[in-house]
């Protein structure tokens, strides 16, 4: 499979049959960061990742109202090792780590189980050794999850998709039958001091108490949510203290650069047909196609420390460490080439007031067939000063070495990042839908999906083309000239043969188009409405439909 397809745009697509992002990684502990949970889901073993889809053990959690026992930052920095005891182990040396507390409880103990203790709780307890109780279907207090369960627990439950093992009744220590769980609650609270901080100042805590580096991975494959995470980190995190590597993958989507023209860059008709999303990112650069076989990496730093070459060299180093025989190198255009020929990674970046991010793609196992077809624009006659993409021949790393999977590549890169930043090899899973951890994120995701952002931000462009409409036995040539600004038709000239359409109808069409979105749906609505006021004349209707269909095809 050495052919990398025709001369293609900078696109990386991935087979939709790739294994789930959430499947366990070979060498990293992945911990979920949830504001409502105290962070770590599973610390049973620091070396095994878990999938959030299976019920996760939960550290005990308390209501936010409980005051923190000690100054937050210090405690957070002293958070213990994952599988270790509940006691702080002293100040860490070396790079920072994500302040995710370990699950408490190391000793095997048994609850003095009362008959009233639910089955699930008793089951959970037997799994306490070295970890935390498994989640059961009901609250440990015997009640099923209800409105009286603190929001924290319900939140955790909703985030993980599994019910919490127990409930905290009221605001105090649970008056539950299991003293062991009670101990766990207390124990884990010592380690969960940052939790209360998160709940008081959610955006500050999780993100700011770590110093050094942070590696996070999104559990979502939604391009808008993931782009929103980038925005959020860029806007809210203090990157003076730490730098972040964000790992993400998307289900099929085309992502255009900040100042690009989607009509010029891709086949919008095909995108709509195949239900492939279109997103506009806030960084510059060209158009790419994502799917699960493409991995995205975002390097967040202060503006001063912004250094794309360094980041890309890190990736190349990781790839070579994984497979020394790989011929990969970084070009001065900030692409990564395989075999000196095929592009496997493209780069884009954004510089803000104080912070910056550089993100890039990495082609692992993409569906190049889909890639090349969606990235070929059928629209003719477009003139614009929008930033164009630079087409490139692409190739998947998988084609070079079938043993390479997205997961393996992600881990290798995260490992190299950890080594270079002298930090622990922990990848924190984050849920971009978690409003508590990332306040305001859903608004950011929403904004990225608005028509105004995706299409409306297109730099002004003009369409100058000729519709060659086959009508009856001849071809009607219709010159069309339109100016589109903010995605709306500003100027519209349709050069029809005289009397081909009744003048009044023609002028209604042009008037209706001006100011309306350069969009097939909106235009369809417009022309359908106009047709209703036309006389019932078959000839007229067929001419009208022919013209309008052709006009809509331009969009």
């Amino acid at each position, binding site marked *: 499979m050495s052919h990398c397809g025709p001369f293609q745009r900078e696109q990386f697509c991935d087979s939709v049959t790739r294994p789930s992002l959430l499947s366990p990684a070979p060498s990293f502990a992945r911990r979920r960061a949830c504001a409502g949970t105290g962070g770590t889901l599973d610390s049973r073993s620091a070396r095994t990742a878990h999938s959030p889809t299976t019920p996760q053990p939960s550290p005990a959690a308390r209501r936010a109202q409980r005051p923190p026992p000690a100054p937050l930052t210090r405690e957070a920095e002293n958070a213990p090792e994952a599988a270790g005891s509940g006691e702080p182990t002293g100040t860490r040396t070396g790079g920072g780590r994500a302040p995710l507390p370990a699950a408490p409880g190391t000793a095997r103990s048994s609850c003095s189980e009362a008959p009233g203790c639910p089955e699930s709780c008793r089951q959970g307890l037997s799994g306490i050794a070295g970890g935390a109780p498994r989640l059961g279907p009901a609250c440990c207090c015997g009640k099923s999850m209800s409105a009286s369960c603190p929001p924290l627990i319900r939140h955790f439950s909703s985030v993980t998709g599994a019910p919490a093992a127990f409930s905290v009744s009221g605001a105090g220590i649970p008056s539950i039958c299991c003293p062991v769980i009670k101990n766990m609650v207390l124990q884990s609270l010592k380690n969960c001091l940052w939790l209360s901080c998160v709940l008081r100042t959610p955006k500050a805590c999780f993100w700011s108490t770590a110093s050094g580096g942070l590696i996070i991975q999104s559990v979502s494959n939604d391009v808008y949510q993931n782009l929103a995470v980038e925005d959020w980190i860029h806007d809210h995190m203090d990157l003076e203290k730490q730098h972040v590597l964000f790992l993400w993958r998307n289900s099929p989507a085309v992502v255009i*650069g*900040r*100042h690009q023209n989607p009509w010029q860059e891709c086949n919008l008709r095909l995108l709509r047909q195949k239900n492939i999303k279109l997103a506009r990112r*806030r*960084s*510059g*650069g060209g158009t790419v196609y994502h799917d699960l076989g493409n991995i995205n990496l975002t390097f967040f730093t202060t503006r001063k420390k*912004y250094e794309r070459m360094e980041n890309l060299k890190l990736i190349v180093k990781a790839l070579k460490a994984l497979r020394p025989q790989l011929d990969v190198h970084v070009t001065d255009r900030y692409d990564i080439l395989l075999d000196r020929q095929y592009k496997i990674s493209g780069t*884009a*970046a*954004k*510089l*803000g*007031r104080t912070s*910056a991010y*550089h993100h890039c793609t990495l082609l692992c196992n993409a569906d190049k067939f889909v890639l090349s077809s969606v990235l070929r624009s059928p629209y003719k006659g477009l003139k614009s*000063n*929008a*930033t164009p993409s630079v087409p490139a021949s692409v190739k998947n790393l998988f084609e070079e070495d079938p043993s390479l999977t997205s997961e393996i590549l992600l881990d290798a890169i995260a490992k190299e990042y950890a080594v270079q930043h002298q930090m622990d090899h922990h990848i924190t899973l984050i849920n971009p839908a978690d409003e508590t951890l990332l306040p305001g994120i859903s608004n950011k995701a929403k904004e990225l999906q608005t028509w105004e952002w995706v299409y409306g931000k297109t*730099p*002004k462009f003009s369409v100058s083309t000729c519709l060659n409409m086959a009508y009856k036995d001849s071809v009607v040539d219709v010159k069309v000239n339109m100016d589109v600004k903010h995605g709306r038709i500003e100027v519209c000239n349709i050069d029809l043969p005289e009397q081909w359409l009744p003048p009044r109808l023609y002028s209604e069409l042009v008037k209706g188009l001006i100011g309306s979105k350069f969009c097939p749906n909106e235009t369809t609505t417009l022309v359908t409405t106009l047709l209703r006021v036309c006389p019932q004349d078959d000839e007229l209707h067929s001419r009208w439909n022919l013209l309008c269909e052709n006009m809509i095809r331009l969009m």
Partner: protein
Amino acid sequence: MWAPRSISSTRRGRARKFTDKHEWVSVENGIGTVGISDFAQEALGDVVYCSLPEVGTKLSKHDEFGALESVKAASELYSPLSGEVTEINAALADNPGLVNKSCYQDGWLIKMTVANSAELDELMTEDAYEKYIKSIED
């Protein structure tokens, strides 16, 4: 030795003031002309696209009013003053490189009214700005 590619003029009433984000503004007859400094255009690299606001847009000081895309990155522009946009540099649409070639003259970005002239006093003089960039370069 850092040598400016173009020298900001200091004619009467047109003294250039600078922000710590490397934008400059020069006010004449109540209208401020805004651009980016030589330091900024060097750091940015070749500008390939200028995204500027609509005439009539009301800006507060520090508001993001547009972006410059260069080969390096998309870089946000922040308003040095509060006011209303009266004009944008149309030449940049077809010739974004003017920002690099002539950042203080032909490569100006927007013109705006000055809603609050006290804000001008908060900005750096050219001398202060030169000192500032020397300090951050170290």
